[in-house]
Each structure stands twice: as structure tokens, then as C-alpha cells.
């Protein structure tokens, strides 16, 4: 051993010091970097190419705002777990993508004071329905970034083969079931309609809305809503389509079945537009059918950006959020997100796009509905119970009649 004791200690102190300094940030006490810049952490759930696009947008913002440095943190699939852990450790990102406001609201900064500082037109430029999905009890917690409503995707080739006319806006569930029946062909192993065997309760509520029902009343009571005749009728419709074998349940969302060309119709959000195109499916989209007397409704799968309550740079954070939801950024995201600003939809003439306009008309006719997750106190528990009930109704190994299955949840 040639080295001395002092030398060894020196090396280890250095290593330790390096380790420890890596844990703490380089910010000084007033929250600013040495060069006077404020660092903002921004968390996204997007992956792959979308992140690259976002990186470019952020670079643009950083170049324009010399006093702010935004750092993107791409959490990907584990987004919720990581956000949860961050919030729990009081180390949440300053700005984060958000959709599940009811679950996280206690950790988020209410944005009304910031929005009120802006012109009246600022808030009005966003689609009204989207504010519902970014606020709780009138308090706004996030700025809308993107959204998708749900629509019917249909395979044109299969419609042609069955000699059916393509569906049009304003069609009814009766027509839908009729089409399902005609599209189903045992010999070719094609089925009219596919839906998830384990539907997400958040998504499924839109079918109830279309029939004038919902999971809970405005006080959060299940009894009288979930088991109302209209609700049961809706569940029964899906149940019977399975029973008559004009519909199948999918292990995923029906997209795989659609891609293989074995299924005539599925109902879902805008996520599959490019995927079906790539798969070479000759498809069209149309509004969700109605129950006759009033237009159908869709759940909105929304994405917003929210601010952490613990953020030390709220003014700067809002400036960034404003940029992120502004016209320019909306246009940059056109390739993968439906714009949330009326002015952008107008300038890009999206109302004339035969595919995209369907999503906007679904949005227009769905604005008066509020999902149960925003009303009830304990959605995560209720959602789990509902999920089990749906499985009981739609799983081929149980197939419990909706009326019976629903009974256990209401009680």
C-alpha cells in the first residue's frame, strides 16, 4: 500500500461531494441560475417523434425568452406513477401535462387569477367544452392543449362488399345495429363491430349520455342513475349485440381487429387516424349514432397543461403555458393533435376537412356533459367497481345480464 491515509480520505471525500452535489440542484437561494435564468421543469407523457417535436417547440421558446430555461422531462408510459411520486415528494415538475384533474387537483395551482389578467377573448378562443375537462367546480386547473372526441371508424371496403351505404351524421343506433348485422359474415370471419371487453368506465359513460343517462346524478348518487331504465337499455344494447354475434369484444380497443380488416366498425378517439392509414385500411369516420330523439354525445379525452402548486416560478410557468397552448404551438402540433383554439381551426380550415370536422362536431354536441370522475368523490374506487361489472356483462365466460350486474355496484 503506497498511498497514505490522508490521500484515501481525500479521494473519498471528493467522490462523496460529487455524489451529494449531483442530488441538489445548482440553483442558488433565489431560485435563479448563475446566469440569471429561471429553470422550469416540464413533464410530458408523449413518446417518440412527438417528443422531438416538443423539444423543437421548447427550443423556440427558450430562444425567445432569455430569462427562462424550460427543460423537458419525457416520462412516457409510466407518466402517472412518476407524477404521483414527484407530487408526493414535493418535487413535482413546474408544468405538467394533465388530464385526470380530480385525482391531482390538491397538488395543482388554480389558474383563474392568471387567466383573468388576460383579455376576455383569450379564454373564449378555446372551445368551451374543453374548459369543463380542465377545471373542477368552476375552478380552472389547466389550459387545454389537445383533445379528442370519440367517433365511429368504419371500413369502407367491407361496407361496399355488404352493399351498404356509408353511414352519415345523425344516424341512429338502430341503423348501426342493422349495419353490424349485414357486415357480419361467418364465412369470411368478419364481424360488424368490435369494442373492448374491458371498457374504460371513463370512456363508456358517453353511451349513457347519448341516451339521457349517466353513472351518477349531480349529487353523486348511483341509485337512480346507473340503474335507470335508460342506462340499462344502453348496456342491454351492447350486451345483445354480443349475444346475437354481430359484435365481438376485443382484448385491446379493437384497433388490431380493425387493422386486420376483420371488423367493420370500432368507436374510438383520433389516435388511430394515421395508424389505419399506414395499415392500408380504406376507412371513414362518422359521428357516434344517436338514440333517436337527440344527438349523440362523446367523452372528451383531453390533454391540458397544469401548474404545480409548489412551483417557485409561477409567473414564468404561466408564460410558458400560454406559449404552449397558443396559436403558434397549436399549429406546430397539427400533425398529431387536434387544435383547441377556434382561431386555429378557422385559419387552418379544419371545419372543411371531412375527417377532422367529425371530431369537432362531436365536441360541439357534447359540451353540456360532465364525466362522473369530476363529480364523485372517489372515482378510482367506483371506476374499479364499474370495470368489474362491465367485464361481467361482456366477458364470454360470465355474460351476466346488465340489470343483474349493475345491481351489485349500486348496492
Amino acid at each position: 500500500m503506497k498511498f497514505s491515509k490522508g490521500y484515501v480520505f481525500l479521494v473519498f471525500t471528493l467522490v462523496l461531494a460529487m455524489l451529494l452535489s449531483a442530488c441538489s440542484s445548482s440553483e442558488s437561494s433565489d431560485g435563479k441560475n448563475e446566469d440569471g435564468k429561471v429553470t422550469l421543469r416540464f413533464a410530458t407523457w408523449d413518446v417518440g417523434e412527438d417528443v422531438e417535436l416538443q423539444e423543437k417547440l421548447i427550443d423556440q421558446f427558450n430562444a425567445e425568452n432569455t430569462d427562462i430555461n424550460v427543460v423537458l422531462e419525457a416520462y412516457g408510459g409510466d407518466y402517472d406513477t412518476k407524477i404521483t411520486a414527484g407530487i408526493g415528494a414535493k418535487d413535482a415538475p413546474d408544468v405538467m401535462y394533465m388530464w385526470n384533474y380530480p385525482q391531482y387537483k390538491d397538488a395543482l395551482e388554480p389558474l383563474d387569477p392568471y387567466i383573468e389578467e388576460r383579455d376576455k377573448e383569450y379564454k373564449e378562443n378555446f372551445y368551451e367544452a374543453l374548459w369543463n375537462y380542465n377545471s373542477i367546480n368552476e375552478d380552472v386547473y389547466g389550459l387545454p392543449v389537445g383533445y379528442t372526441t370519440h367517433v365511429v371508424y368504419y371500413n369502407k371496403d367491407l361496407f361496399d362488399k355488404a352493399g351498404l351505404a356509408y353511414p352519415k351524421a345523425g344516424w341512429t343506433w338502430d341503423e348501426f345495429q342493422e349495419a353490424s348485422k349485414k357486415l357480419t359474415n361467418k364465412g369470411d370471419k368478419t364481424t360488424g363491430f368490435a369494442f373492448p371487453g374491458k371498457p374504460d368506465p371513463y370512456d363508456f359513460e358517453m353511451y349513457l349520455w347519448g341516451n339521457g343517462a349517466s353513472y351518477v346524478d349531480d349529487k353523486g348518487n348511483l341509485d337512480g342513475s346507473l340503474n335507470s331504465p335508460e342506462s340499462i337499455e344502453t348496456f342491454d344494447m351492447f350486451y345483445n349485440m354480443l349475444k346475437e354475434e354481430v359484435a365481438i369484444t376485443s382484448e385491446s380497443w379493437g384497433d388490431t381487429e380493425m387493422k386486420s380488416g376483420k371488423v367493420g366498425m370500432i368507436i374510438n378517439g383520433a389516435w388511430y387516424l394515421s395508424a389505419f392509414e399506414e395499415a392500408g385500411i380504406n376507412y371513414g369516420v362518422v359521428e357516434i349514432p344517436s338514440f333517436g330523439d337527440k344527438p349523440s354525445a362523446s367523452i372528451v379525452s383531453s390533454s391540458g397543461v397544469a401548474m404545480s402548486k409548489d412551483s417557485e416560478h409561477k409567473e414564468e410557468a404561466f408564460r410558458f403555458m400560454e406559449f404552449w397552448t397558443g396559436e403558434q404551438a397549436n399549429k406546430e402540433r397539427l400533425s398529431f393533435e387536434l387544435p383547441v383554439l377556434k382561431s386555429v381551426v378557422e385559419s387552418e380550415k379544419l371545419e372543411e376537412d371531412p375527417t377532422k370536422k367529425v371530431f369537432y362536431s362531436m365536441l360541439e354536441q357534447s359540451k353540456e356533459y360532465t364525466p362522473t370522475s369530476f363529480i364523485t368523490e372517489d372515482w378510482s374506487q367506483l371506476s374499479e367497481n364499474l370495470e368489474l361489472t362491465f367485464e361481467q356483462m361482456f366477458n364470454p365466460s360470465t355474460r351476466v345480464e346488465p340489470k343483474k350486474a349493475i345491481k351489485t355496484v349500486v348496492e
Partner: protein
Amino acid sequence: MPIKKKKEKKFTLIRKRVPYLFIMPWIIGYLAFTLGPLAFSLVMSLFDWPIAGEAKFIGIDNFTKMFTADPQFYNSLLITFKFALIFVPLNLGVALILALLITQPIKGMKFFRTIFYLPAVVSGVAVSIIWGWMFNTEYGVFNYLLSFLGLEEPSWLIDPKWAIVAIVIASAWGVGTMMLIFYTDIKSIPHDMYEAAAIDGAGVIRQFISITIPSITPTILFNVITSVIAALQQLTLVLLLTGGGPLKSTYFYGLFVYNNAFKHHELGYASANAWFMFIIIMLFTLMIFKSSSAWVFYEAEVKKEKKEKREKKKKSEVKNNEDFQKA
């Protein structure tokens, strides 16, 4: 020479401290990332601890809720035990058979040794996704193969009867590590034992039962304990492959804890759940260890016994000799 002595003293002082300094990063990591959180979760289990907002001290309420007000707790526990009951013997059996196979002196065995071990290297997440594809009712490779044999094509991940079987099959895939441990132990059994047995007329099966099995009992003990723990803590597969479904038939205890923490955001309750599982695992391990004296056979112990016997004999011989001489 006092100077040299002083130097020597200094030298031993360094020698004593340096090793600790070298393992310091690990010790710090262990304290900060394992022991610390562990202790902290015990504290949390006594609180109503939401993700955002204030934690509230509630004593043992989390534990009483678990036992009295949460039917899912019992369901999950039952499913997990059921799984362990199938998984542990099956895994041990498969690992042992594979280990025996790869000890055979056949050409190309190195290749098989590698491919049998390979699955153990793949990350659990990738494994889950791959199995999800293979089990798919519509396009899965399993049902494709079964259709050739004209056998029933189960809806693996949709039928509650089959889902747990699917989980067992998928987890048995990672048997490689256990196989390797068996393999090294079997390899270390002296060859002359088998030769001697063969000369005495023992067949292959007799050799296996009377030589191989007794020689590897300590390894079996080790593998039983580790696989019981692995079975009771199973999470990755059910989280990614079935999500607890269909109809909650694979809602394992690990998933129950995970969901309580990260879905329902009840960190205190989840901590209580986790600590209960800790106690169960500890009890199981203790029980297995207690039972081990009846069936585990340590060569070293036998040698020690023999040596003691020999020494006793020697002593008594010497004594006898002395007695004899005295007489």
C-alpha cells in the same frame, strides 16, 4: 525499535478503515434507498397519507381496515397463495429437470445451457409484452399451435379459469437462474459416488434418488425460499399482462398494494399492506427453515460428526490403551 512499531500501528489502522471506505457508496445507497424508505413506510402505515395534502395520524386504522373492511384484501391474498402453491413446485421441478438435462455429457450442451438461461436475462417488462402477444386469442401463437393439434383453444387472458394458468406459464419462463444454481450444485457432486453406486448395481433413477437429491438438499432449500418470496411478490406480469383481470382473477397481492398506492393514492394503506406481506413472508421463511432440519443434509455437518466420532473413538482408544497399560 519504537519507530517501526509506530509505523506498523498506523498501517493496521489504514488497513482496517480502507475496506469500509471502499464499500461506503454501497452502504450509503443502502441506507438512503433501501433501509431508509423501509423504515419510513412503517411510519407511513400508521398515517392516512394522501399524495397531495396533509398526512394524518390514525394509529392502526389501516391495519383494521385491511382485515375488516376490505374484501379485496382477502381475495388478493387467496389468489397469491393459490399461485404460489402451483408456481413453487412447478418451478422447482422444471429447474431441476433442466439442470439434470444440461449436466448430460452430450455434444452441443453448451448451446442448450445458454438458451435455457437466456430468458432469465430478458427484462420483466419485455417478457410481459411478448407473452401478451403469444396468449392473444385472435392472433396468439399458442392458439395457433393448439389448433394444429385439434385441442381446445382457451381464451388465455379473457377466461378467468385460464388467466392464472397463463401467469404461471409466463413466470415459469424465468426459471433459468434457478436452473443454473441447481446445475452448479449437481456438477459438484463427486463422480466416484455414482461410479461406486453403479458398481453396486444402482440404476439411474436409484442414483438420482439416493445420491443427487440428498446432495443438493441445501440448494433445494435455498431455491424453495427464494421462489416462495418471488411468488408472493409477483407484480410485473400481472400489472402488464392482465392488469389483475379478467374479473379480478389475477388480482395478486402485489397488484393490490400497487393499486392502493398509485391508483387510489392511499400511501399509508399501501404501506400497511406491504408490511403485512413482509410478516407473512417472514413466517413462511421461518417455517421452511424450521422444517429444513428434517430434510436438508449438509455434507459439512456429516463430516464434522464423523470427525467428532473419530476423535471420540481415538480418545477412548487412547484411554483404553492407557487403562490397559495401567492395568
